[in-house]
């Protein structure tokens, strides 16, 4: 039942969204964004899965390549999305965190409501 994975991804995404919307602690907001990001990895990998499928790897060069797509293999395109998203996600989280550290050093608080310089 791959639907369980889809629902789990949606729940994790909503947890992250709720954290971002209700918490004012900047670290927790970054954690919420990371949760939303991680849920998309689970979602894309689950979307790539097919019943009894194997990893999209050819063990040896097959005899007639045009019949390949009819075998049970997982979707390589979605796995590729997930792969690049992980690395980009790490780098973007690092940007968030360095902004948070600078805010904490400058304003001496992690509470987004107390960072008053941002209220134009």
């Amino acid at each position, binding site marked *: 039942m791959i639907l369980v994975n889809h629902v789990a991804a949606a729940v994790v995404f*909503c947890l992250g969204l709720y954290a971002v919307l209700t918490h004012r602690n900047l670290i927790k907001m970054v954690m919420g964004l990371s949760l939303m990001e991680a849920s998309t990895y689970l979602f894309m990998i689950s979307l790539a899965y097919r019943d009894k499928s194997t990893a999209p*790897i050819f063990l040896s060069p097959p005899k007639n390549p045009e019949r390949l797509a009819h075998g049970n293999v997982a979707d390589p395109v979605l796995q590729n999305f997930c792969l*690049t998203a992980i*690395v980009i996600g790490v*780098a973007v989280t690092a940007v968030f965190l360095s902004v948070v550290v600078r805010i904490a050093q400058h304003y*001496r608080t992690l509470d987004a409501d107390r960072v008053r310089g941002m209220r134009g």
Partner: protein
Amino acid sequence: MSADHQPRRHVAVGALLTAGFAALLVAGLAGLPREHDPLPPIARYALEVALPRWKLTEPVNEVVYGTRGFDTFGETFLLLAAVLSVIVLTRPREGRRGYFGESAAGQEEQAELDPIETGPAEEQEARRAERGESRGDRPSTPDSTPLGTPGPETAEAMSVVVRGAVRTVLPVLAVAGLYLVTWGYSPGGGFPAGAVVTGVILLVYAAYGRSRIARAVKSETLEGIEMAGAGLILGTELLGLILRGSFSANWLPLAPPQTIRSGGVVQLFSFGELFEVATGLTIVIFSLLSMGHDWSPDPESEGDEE
């Protein structure tokens, strides 16, 4: 800083918006392909062209660096932009080449003229904490700590057990990661291999401490390597445009499957990505770890805090 204060706002509005979005997600999930549906045409296309056109037995690699090469190209420069942002955000106020010692001299003068340091209590507390973190007479490893010493671990490196384990695992991990990317066997090639190389560097850092890797992990060196990787990717993709008339087209002769050169430009791109990811993640992590406080007043932003 109020670490134990947990501010929350608009819980009801947040819950309502989240519930609304959850309903949207459920509606979207209902129409998705499931485990018994056929693969979408783009996936079937990727599986069909991997061997005949690219001589690759690893379709994910073919998608990342071949069919979807242009997207990966954009993502690579997104990664580069993120790394540059972290470098800019974490840099100290003055870029300098050497140690001039004015901070130490200032501290001496302060001790002579004004021994009771004035300033906000928070700043004094943070300064004390920073002094506590800096290297003093700490032992380099826990092995050289006298028996029965009270208090938490203060050594820079970890114990001989961890160091021995890391020393054993490191060569295997490094060779395995590089082997997989060299032969084009790992899905995604340079992306996971770059993460493995970063992991190797972090293992050395965790087990042996900062001083053991300080010579290798210098931001000037890493930035140079990262730019070389970006240049390699840019050159590879542009040569496709010049020689074959299409950006990210293959212009190298294809070797038989399961050899080092079997993917043509895919392998070149993958190696460029290895340098990009490995140096980029390492720069980001060590920039964040070495973010120091900047205590000098900033007259331009004084008015913002009203």
